[in-house]
């Protein structure tokens, strides 16, 4: 069965979709009231974010667009030290999408939501004519309760250490491999990161800056921090965790693992005294967590090789295309 324009018409089919699929999977006392807006209670400092998700392919090793849309927004909240609480979700569906595909996406959203104490409290569905969008676009917005504040890209000081929570480049590798027709067993790192962040906060780590390395990868995060805090970040090439599969795929295509997207990997800056403890905590979640570098005086991001040369790491530019030869 395929989704037709009738499902977005606001009539009987739309209601069926909402009741049988969305309410059934996302149900909570706020959502099922089905009012024009959700009424929620928030006290204290609150984080608010939004993100839209489009991805080709919509199903990939280790996730799908549904899981991504929840993890992405929850992670944006988590990176600001906020516990995800309330989410909105909007679907823009291309006419002709298989109903079973939508169901799989909704199932995975529901599975992902159960991993955090967050609820979908409002939503919307549109169905548009074939060709107007690519299969399905999802927007989620999220509200989170700030548990640890004052986390900012502007906070970095000379001597601070930079850590990465796990091996990099998985999500980007999976997507690019599928797009260019290469079979791979790599799984995307797509995952909600609140548990990791909460562990750091609970253990009393003074988190200075934190960001999930999504599009643009590790390179982008480090460059943004260097610019925002007006400092130089020096990283050591042999400390950056990269799985054999990801480096192999990068060899084939001519990509840089540091430029590839991640969806469940974050970079955190802490004071030097907290670095080892941070690493130990992160290692409980992924053994590849690593202290990759430190903040020094200057500007830009510099990579140090183990044999004594240095090079700049720039922001990735343009579309990622395989090299010619």
């Amino acid at each position, binding site marked *: 069965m395929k989704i037709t324009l009738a499902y977005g018409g606001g009539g009987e089919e739309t209601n069926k979709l909402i009741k049988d699929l969305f309410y059934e999977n996302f149900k909570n006392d706020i959502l099922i009231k089905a009012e024009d807006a959700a009424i929620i209670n928030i006290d204290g400092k609150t984080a608010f974010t939004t993100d839209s998700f489009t991805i080709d392919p919509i199903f990939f090793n280790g996730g799908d667009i549904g899981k991504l849309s929840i993890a992405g927004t929850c992670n944006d909240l988590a990176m600001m030290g906020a516990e995800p609480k309330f989410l909105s979700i909007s679907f823009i569906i291309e006419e002709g999408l298989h109903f079973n595909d939508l169901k799989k996406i909704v199932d995975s959203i529901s599975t992902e939501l159960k991993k955090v104490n967050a609820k979908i409290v409002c939503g919307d569905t549109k169905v548009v004519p074939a060709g107007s969008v690519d299969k399905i676009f999802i927007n989620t917005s999220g509200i989170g309760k700030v548990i640890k504040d004052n986390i900012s890209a502007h906070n970095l000081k000379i001597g601070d250490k930079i850590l990465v929570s796990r091996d990099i480049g998985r999500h980007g590798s999976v997507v690019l491999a599928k797009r260019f*027709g290469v079979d791979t067993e790599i799984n995307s790192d797509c995952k909600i990161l609140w548990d990791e962040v909460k562990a750091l906060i609970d253990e009393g780590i003074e988190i200075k800056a934190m960001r999930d390395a999504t599009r643009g990868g590790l390179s982008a995060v480090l460059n943004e921090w260097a610019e925002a805090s007006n400092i130089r970040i020096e990283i050591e090439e042999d400390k950056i965790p990269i799985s054999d599969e990801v480096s192999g795929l990068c060899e084939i295509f001519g990509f840089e693992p540091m430029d590839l997207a991640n969806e469940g990997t974050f970079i955190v800056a802490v004071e030097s005294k907290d670095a080892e403890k941070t690493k130990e905590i992160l290692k409980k979640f992924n053994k590849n967590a690593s202290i990759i570098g430190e903040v020094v005086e200057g500007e830009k991001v510099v990579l140090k090789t183990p*044999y004594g*040369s240095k090079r700049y790491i720039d922001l990735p530019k343009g579309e990622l295309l395989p090299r010619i030869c």
Partner: protein
Amino acid sequence: MSLSLKDLYSKFRDPATIKALKKEIEKEAVKLKEPMRVMEICGGHTHTIMKYGIKQILPDNINFIHGPGCPVCVMPKERIDHAIILAKQPDVILATLGDMIRVPGSTSSLAKARAEGANVVPLHSTLDVLEIAKANPDKKVVFFAIGFETTTPMTAALMKRALNEGVKNIYYHINHVLVPPPMRAIMDGGEARINAFIGPSHVSVIIGAKSYEFLAKDYNTPVVVAGFEPVDVMESILMLLKQKNEGRCEVEIQYKRATTYEGNLVAQKLIDEFMEVRDSFRWRGLGDIPYSALKLKDKFSEFDAEKVWADVLPNKPIDDHKLCICGEILKGLANPKECKVFATACTPSNPLGSCMVSDEGACNAYYRYGR
């Protein structure tokens, strides 16, 4: 014990080996009578030298002159315009390899043409063209073929497969260029004062080290065919230094794990089956070089996009931006940092010249790693 992909390259990036080679190079370099001006012909080597910071760890009397071996960098604007014009023809799907998508022609690029609705497909593998053609029997699939001798056999293999399988809707716009002719042109020019060469890796796998004998014989310049990894480049530098200090002038192969003296004879034969040398080809920056590129043989004219669409494809030379010095850089006469617009008006996001476009271009490598 099974072999993993990593085993194939990790030792060639081994820090201890690089450090050991550095020491050996230092010992030889002090004995040099004059500074070594070594041209790495291939853009892949330029990339390796910049990415791994090899220049920084070598003595000051070893200088790299970056050569013209970046296939998209040497493509003149009028031929990039061909790609854009072809992509906009009715019922055409234009397929090409990677970076070509970004290269600016005289007024647009394939990426912009695609945004305007042209059907442009970036390929990872040349043979994917066959699948595209089969899946779109009512379309004309134009393969805009670029690259040096490395990618040429793939184009020939695609033609062979297509003909064998009776796939008739693939057309070829051949821009395959040859490595030896521009090397001769650069040496004849003499201005770059090159006294050693690092020979290309994968080009040499196809054409064989024998193709560089003329550099040793006619120009008394040593050549070492090198692999693309940092250990390969370091070892090749050491081999060149030893040739210099021992007064030898030979073609040697460091990249023995893939290159032979004769090259890949099967690939060479396959190329000969479908293509022949053009009388002349215009190189961006270098100008017209006789017998420096390939074209389809006349018997395949019905698949030759240059002939099929001859009416709409202009051939008037188009000059580079007047501030761009890609020509001088490709000839080994200038370094990207000497260009007035480098990293200011000309960046990878908005390249004025071709050397900024491709990963293999000298300006792009300097921008990414060495600014």
